[in-house]
């Protein structure tokens, strides 16, 4: 019985997975298609157009949000890459007890629901009387980005021969110099992956930004407020662009990390 139906079993598996894939991607595909639809209505296709994309770049609000998004993402990536990489190196050299304490602390923002992270940070900024804007958004982004960098760098450090650093010292290297001459080149692939991941997460974030900034909006926040008002084709165009950028970044990250595992 098993042999004969093997082909059928395989076909069933493929069909099932294809359906799951369709469930996940058809809505996105439809939205991308609609972003090129000349009609404002979702109900009919009246021709192909780039108008909505053109409108996107005419809107001051969207351009401002784009600027905020990229500024925050770049700055958050830079800071969290440095913090996270140094953190990983330090934790790697630490005694077990302290390291596991710090590791648990790093898991905390990943296991806390986004909304709680968002409101708690908002509370703190209000408590410290820092106006909610680009600056607070940036600080919040650094807070949730840094663990991603840390967790991308840690495995590289663990794989590294523990004697490498000592070998550099042994050959006359000053500890700080050994850090960038030996350790950094060893863990660089992890650092780059971590930075890419941090950048993606920052571009991608909505909930935490929503709570930690009120004067400045990022792109996700623009989409949210527009979506609450109803559907708008320019938003389809904006979403499409964001999807494509994020997808490309994710594929690069994924490729990097699967190459590393080999």
């Amino acid at each position, binding site marked *: 019985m098993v042999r004969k139906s093997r082909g059928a079993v395989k076909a069933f598996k493929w069909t099932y997975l294809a359906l799951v894939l369709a469930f996940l991607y058809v809505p996105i595909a439809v939205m991308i298609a609609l972003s090129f639809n000349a009609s404002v209505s979702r109900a009919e296709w009246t021709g192909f157009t780039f108008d909505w994309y053109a409108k996107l770049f005419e809107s001051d609000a969207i351009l401002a949000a784009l600027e905020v998004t990229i500024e925050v993402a770049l700055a958050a990536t830079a800071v969290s890459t440095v913090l996270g990489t140094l953190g990983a190196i330090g934790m790697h050299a630490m005694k077990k007890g302290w390291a596991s304490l710090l590791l648990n602390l790093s898991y905390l923002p990943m296991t806390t629901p986004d909304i709680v992270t968002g409101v708690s940070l908002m509370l703190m900024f209000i408590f410290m009387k820092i106006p909610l804007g680009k600056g607070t958004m940036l600080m919040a982004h650094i807070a949730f980005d840094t663990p991603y960098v840390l967790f991308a760098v840690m495995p590289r450090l663990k794989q590294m*021969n523990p*004697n490498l650093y*000592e*070998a550099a*010292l*042994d*050959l*006359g290297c000053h*500890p700080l110099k050994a850090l960038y001459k*030996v350790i950094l080149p060893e863990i660089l692939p992890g650092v780059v992956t971590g930075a890419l991941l941090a950048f993606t997460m920052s571009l991608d974030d909505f909930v935490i930004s929503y709570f930690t900034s009120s004067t400045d909006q990022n792109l996700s926040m623009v989409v949210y407020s527009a979506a609450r008002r109803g559907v708008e084709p320019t938003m389809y165009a904006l979403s499409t662009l964001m999807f494509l950028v994020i997808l490309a970044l994710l594929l690069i990250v994924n490729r990097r990390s699967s190459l590393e595992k080999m």
Partner: protein
Amino acid sequence: MVQDTRLIELKGISKSFDDTQVLHSIDLYIRKCEFITLLGPSGCGKTTLLRIIGGFETPDEGQVLFEGADMANVPPYRRRINTVFQKYALFSHLNVFDNIAFGLNLKTPEALGVKTRRQKREEIARRVGRMLKLVKMEGYEKRSIDQLSGGQQQRIAIARALVNEPEVLLLDEPLGALDLKLRKEMQVELKAMQQQLGITFIYVTHDQEEALTMSDTVVVLNGGRIQQIGEPKRIYDEPKNAFVADFIGESNILSGIMREDCLVEMLGVEFQCVDEGFAKDEPVDVVVRPEDVMIVGEDVGMLTGTVESVIFKGVHYEMMVNTGAMRWKVHSTTMQPAGSRVGMSIVPFNIHIMRKEA
């Protein structure tokens, strides 16, 4: 040749990791140009001791003196000591040349005896070339580390350390990852290199044969304590206690009682021996090497027994002989078939008496 000056002195070195004490008040001196081996089973503290000499660990108690000066505040990168690490620890982002040149690149031109940066580059190239020749790896400059075999990586690791002209080279189980044949070849080469360069080697291994082959002095460690220090032959022939006897080579270890000077009773039989200075009727450990047991006729043997098993070992046969009270391991070039009755005798010189461990 080993000189009499004491290059490194360890005084009362103790070290613990999280509640477990790995070194108990170690005293040891290392002479100039000596090939000294720290030998012991895993966990005996030999690597920790080496790392303390290298400056990678600080002792909880005790001092490390280098030519009489305390090294406590000298970091690894300022010690005139270089290390060949376990699994080599080569820098995989650098090629062979840059790995070897790593230490030299960190030096000022003056330290290399030249004036300009350009001369420094040339000097480095010259020294790296010389090292590659020493380790028989000429022509490999541009290779990446991943392209090398284990044995080749080993050679590069040695060259990388030696190019800095250290006074002492520390080697942490450097041959551990190589296969048997390559290991034997490298043993000979390492010993030759040490003699040619005239520097001190401190070598860590758990392989007793390796230790005996290469060293001027062997330090046997167990449980964080020095068991015995001595020349290889002395350690082999006169193990100080049952642990050393058992760890170095194969041996028959049994309990005995010293009846008087040069007379020990074991298994109910009195044997002549050459040891003196024990109390009358003091219980002792007796060690007899398998190759020191002579098979003789059943009627003339000091002990008699039945051959239980015979294994051919290449040069000799290894036989287990049961005398009723004990099974003896015997090495002999002539074979006695299993089941046959044999006599055994041991000459006084080959009976090693050791005080019982407390």
